């Protein structure tokens, strides 16, 4: 052990010292499956699920066998050691990281099991799918367990790679390849921010270890703190699909549904929230108030964007994706509130991980049964055909819209309450946005529920894109069991977690700061439920009483058209970044071709041409050489005489 440890940090011992196994097991699974190739086809899915389940078991053992009043530092090896740049490869096991580890391995295990059933149409490639999932789990665990910003960055890029590979899973389809590229590129934009933040830390604090950075950051100048805060936020925006980098997340639904559930709803996209919560010693500083305000604004804007677009889409998974975008907006808003909200952001993250994974798995179950049909206008009346899917999905739905005493109710309420508790007009603006978001969430989720599961079966008589009839059926046990477990978690998780989690997280992210807004906590709860009920009621009045057309209506208001076009998010990115970028590269190519290459080629051509002419003087006639020698000699002699006598 070379580095000194800060207060409250001890060397890992006991169960925590085996934490490296958490990473190693899925990494080993991925390696065996990728290197083993076709030979592992028969049992690859079992190995892939086994490693994650084992990691989950280990995480549970670690959870119960470790004292989380302290932060445990596990030094593995010296990773990078170049002059002053010394980075250890180490893990940090504390309340925050173990919470994430339990979520990742727990939900990850369920989704691995679900994938065994979901991917049984593609037996040939199922092994590779599990290899990528294992790779993802390993990288995600590294992201949350690393003890420095560089190890976090390593995991950050690892999950980006796994996400890219899995979004582009259906390689033959153009839209999947495009979506994968889009996700990768937009993530790079955020990664640049994170990388710059790390550079700034190393430049100014001489280290990237959490303990050392957080110890040194208090004395840093305000400008530096705000810069680091904003750059970290840019990284979080890229990974978590926050405004203005939200457009990749809905497109990422081109991947198989378990991927959408695990990576693009429950775990990876919440990495931005983790990053900000982990950096809470930076954001909590009074000097970082401006950075925190920007975090809150980004969160609030994203809540509204996600909700509004979610109301207009007809694609089952894309509505859920925009729902994810807006729910992560809640978490970002919560962690932007500072000490009043960190714990609630994490709480919402965990509960959201459960119910959103469950909702996605339900969507996957529906699509599995309906020949991959994702257009909700072509579904309907499925509750009789798929009772387990329907009931588990409904529980997830109730949890998401904040039905009293289900998990979303507890976590979202706390966020709304904390937002309303901000001073002055801020409290009303952010609290109002959060309340409005709750109403809109209830509206679009009720619309989904009615169009997919209730009402008339609009699919009878229609054929799917590949020309087959629809024969909806309940999914196999490997798929329904994870859905049931997640539904149970969505129902019970919130109550238990809201009791335990904030206190549990105190050693990692500090005490929860009590907020006292204009409204009492109970009033806020009643208000939020009432607004959700109004949203759900409006959705029922619009979609529940009359039959919806199978074709999407074309004559719609401007608001709906804007929402269908992602509120022009893609156009914005295109106009602000993509086109100027193209122009810049074209201009640079022009300068390079004409300017730099022109100079180099011009010199070469000039030398070549002049030597070609000079060559002509080599005539081969000895007498002309003699003449030139004579002339030269005369010149030399004349020069000598001039120097001598003039």
């Amino acid at each position, binding site marked *: 052990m070379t580095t000194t440890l800060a207060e409250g940090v001890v060397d890992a011992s006991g169960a925590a010292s085996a934490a490296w196994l958490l990473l190693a097991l899925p990494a080993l699974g991925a390696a065996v499956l990728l290197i083993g190739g076709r030979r592992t086809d028969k049992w690859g899915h079992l190995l892939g699920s086994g490693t994650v389940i084992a990691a989950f078991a280990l995480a549970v053992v670690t959870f119960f066998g470790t004292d989380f009043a302290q932060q445990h530092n596990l030094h593995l090896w010296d990773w990078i050691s170049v002059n002053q740049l010394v980075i250890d490869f180490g893990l940090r096991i504390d309340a925050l990281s173990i919470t994430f580890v339990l979520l990742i391995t727990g939900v990850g295990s369920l989704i691995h099991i679900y994938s065994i059933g979901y991917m049984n149409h593609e037996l040939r490639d199922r092994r590779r799918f599990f290899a990528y999932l294992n790779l993802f789990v390993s990288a995600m665990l590294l992201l949350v367990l690393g003890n420095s910003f560089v190890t976090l960055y390593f995991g950050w890029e690892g999950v980006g790679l796994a996400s890219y590979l899995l979004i582009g899973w259906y390689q033959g389809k153009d839209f999947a390849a495009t979506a994968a590229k889009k996700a990768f590129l937009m993530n790079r934009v955020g990664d640049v921010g994170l990388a710059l933040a790390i550079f700034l830390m190393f430049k100014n604090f001489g280290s990237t270890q959490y303990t050392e950075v957080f110890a040194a950051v208090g004395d840093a100048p305000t400008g530096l703190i705000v810069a680091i805060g904003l750059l970290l936020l840019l990284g979080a925006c890229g990974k978590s699909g926050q405004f203005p980098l939200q457009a990749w997340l809905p497109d990422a639904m081109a991947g198989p549904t378990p991927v959408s559930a695990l990576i693009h709803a429950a775990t990876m996209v919440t990495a931005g929230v983790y990053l900000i919560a982990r950096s809470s010693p930076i954001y909590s500083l009074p000097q970082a108030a401006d950075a925190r305000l920007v975090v809150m604004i980004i969160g609030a804007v994203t809540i509204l964007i996600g909700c509004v677009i979610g109301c207009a889409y007809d694609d089952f998974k894309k509505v859920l994706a925009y729902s994810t975008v807006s729910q992560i907006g809640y978490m970002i808003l919560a962690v932007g509130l500072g000490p009043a909200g960190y714990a609630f952001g994490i709480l919402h993250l965990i509960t959201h991980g459960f119910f959103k994974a469950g909702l996605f798995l339900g969507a996957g179950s529906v699509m599995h049964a309906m020949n991959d049909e994702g257009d909700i206008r072509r579904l309907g009346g499925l509750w009789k055909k798929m009772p387990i899917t329907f009931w588990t999905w409904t529980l997830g739905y109730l949890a998401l819209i904040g039905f009293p005493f289900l998990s979303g109710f507890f976590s979202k309420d706390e966020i709304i309450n904390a937002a309303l508790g901000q001073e002055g007009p801020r409290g009303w603006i952010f609290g109002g946005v959060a309340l409005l978001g709750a109403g809109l969430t209830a509206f679009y989720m009720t619309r989904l529920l009615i169009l997919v599961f209730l009402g008339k079966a609009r699919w009878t008589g229609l054929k799917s894109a590949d020309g087959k009839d629809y024969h909806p059926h309940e999914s196999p046990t490997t798929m329904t069991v994870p859905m049931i477990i997640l539904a149970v978690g969505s129902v019970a998780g919130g109550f238990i977690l809201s009791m335990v989690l904030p206190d549990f997280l105190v050693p990692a992210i500090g005490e929860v700061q009590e907020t006292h807004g204009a409204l009492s906590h109970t009033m806020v709860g009643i208000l939020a439920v009432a607004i959700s009920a109004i949203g759900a009621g409006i959705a029922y009045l619009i979609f529940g009483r009359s039959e919806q057309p199978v074709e999407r209506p074309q004559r719609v208001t401007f608001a709906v058209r804007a929402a269908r076009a992602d509120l022009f998010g893609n156009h914005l990115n295109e106009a602000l970044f993509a086109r100027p970028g193209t122009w810049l590269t074209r201009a640079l190519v022009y300068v390079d071709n004409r300017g730099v290459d022109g100079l180099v080629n011009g010199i070469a051509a000039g030398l070549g041409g002049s030597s070609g002419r000079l060559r*002509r003087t*080599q*005539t*081969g*006639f*000895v*007498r002309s050489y*003699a003449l030139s020698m004579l002339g030269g000699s005369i010149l030399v002699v004349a020069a000598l005489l001039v120097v001598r006598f003039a």
Partner: protein
Amino acid sequence: MTPTYYLLLSALLFTIGAVGVLVRRNAIVVFMCIELMLNAVNLTLVTFARLNGDLHGQVMGFFVMVVAAAEVVVGLAIILSIFRTRRTASVDDSNLLKY
């Protein structure tokens, strides 16, 4: 003694040699003209040696003669072999070594 006449003669011989090298085509004649130039230089060296009253210039003259003899041996051999292969002794005909 006055060196003027010696030096004038020497310059005259050197000029004849140089012009001969430039205008004549026959390799043998060019060769003889080169000898003429060398010996014009020798005459100058000897004149100045005499003028200065030491032997340096005369020793230099001997060196020039030795070099000239060696040059004649090699040069004539080359000219002869060119004549054997190409049936000509004209320096303008041997112009293959060019651009």
